[in-house]
């Protein structure tokens, strides 16, 4: 398993008050994303465990785009990856952020 970790600063905190949310399933080509409101308002971390090695650059790009788009300030995000494609990762991250905004 490869472990990756990213830390970003956002312009604002993610709206909403939900303390945590989980979306997706660890299965082939899929992933689960756990989101917890556990950080200062303009910080966001994303930790990933993936069985597919050597895609660090792709993960970095996916996470950076997600952060720019969703502004998930305050979230500690943890990913268990089952070998998902980047577009699926991106979709799950956005789904997760939306669940936290409820």
């Amino acid at each position, binding site marked *: *398993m490869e472990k990756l970790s990213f830390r970003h600063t956002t312009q604002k905190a993610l709206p909403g008050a939900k303390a945590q949310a989980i979306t997706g399933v*660890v299965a082939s080509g899929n992933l689960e994303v*756990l989101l917890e409101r556990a950080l200062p308002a303009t910080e966001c971390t994303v930790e990933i465990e993936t069985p597919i090695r050597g895609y660090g650059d792709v993960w970095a790009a996916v996470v950076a785009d997600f952060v720019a788009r969703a502004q998930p300030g305050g979230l500690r995000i*943890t990913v*268990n990856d089952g070998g998902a494609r980047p577009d699926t990762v991106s979709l799950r991250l956005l789904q997760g952020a939306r669940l936290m905004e409820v």
Partner: protein
Amino acid sequence: MSERIIDPAARGWATSWYEASARARIDGFLDAGSFREIIGPEQRRMSPHLPLFDLPRAFDDGMIIGSGRLDGKPVLVAAQEGRFMGGAFGEVHGAKLVGLLRAALPLNPDAVLILFDTGGVRLQEANAGETAIAEVMRAITQVRAAGVPVIGLIGGRAGAYGGGGLIAGTCSRLVVSESGRISVSGPEVIETNKGAEEFDSRDRALVWRTMGGKHRRLTGGADAFADDTVEAFRQAALDAIARAPAFDLTTLEAEQRRLEERLARFGDCRDATEIWTRLGVNDPEAVPALSTADFDALLANLGETTHDAR
């Protein structure tokens, strides 16, 4: 600007049990907002063994447990996620269910509900999984003996295979949908060990009429047949709670008679359609295509598929 074209509430069709994740099943099944998870994903109680095999872990180890309400009744609930490692029993996965059943004794809920979706034992943790299955079966009989019904619901992708099939057979009542399969040896396992002449695992119609929900319901291996919707499972579970058999000598003697009679009546049948014919089904070939309403009507006519001998 994005617009939301699809309003989930206005979709006009029900959530499929088969398609839903374990969490979505629980959410749709229990009274809205009543689910309280025990050892939630944030506790990260993941498998200590999968990393050894370089396999990804899940925060809940594929077993989601907790308490909630079903039509106001307090219940305990466990749901397997069939897409994670085939819903198989590993150490943490199994221990969560064992713990939930043990908790039922002091808490005395109206029922314990097990939403099965499992291929059996997780090979990477085989000894722990197999022992946990034995512990679960013991705990279920204790919970039943204390008067708490244990209801099994089977309609997920992975079915209830291997030890999952044995646990299902230990429950007070079983609700199954057409997609649900209950069996010990899976089709591929039989084919691998005994050859394609014994069982052609690619013949999916054969798989379903041998192990699928309709066959199990017709032969008394399940007590209720539900449409593949979360709402249908909820209704069927409520009915099942209301009339669960006791766990005592009378019940097991009745089950003994029931199972002996099945061997005597159907022991020489090669195919499910022969069994259905002997049960009095006029057109056995038509059974797989029957709608739930037509199938329920057929069951009502047969009249001998419902029993308390479990």
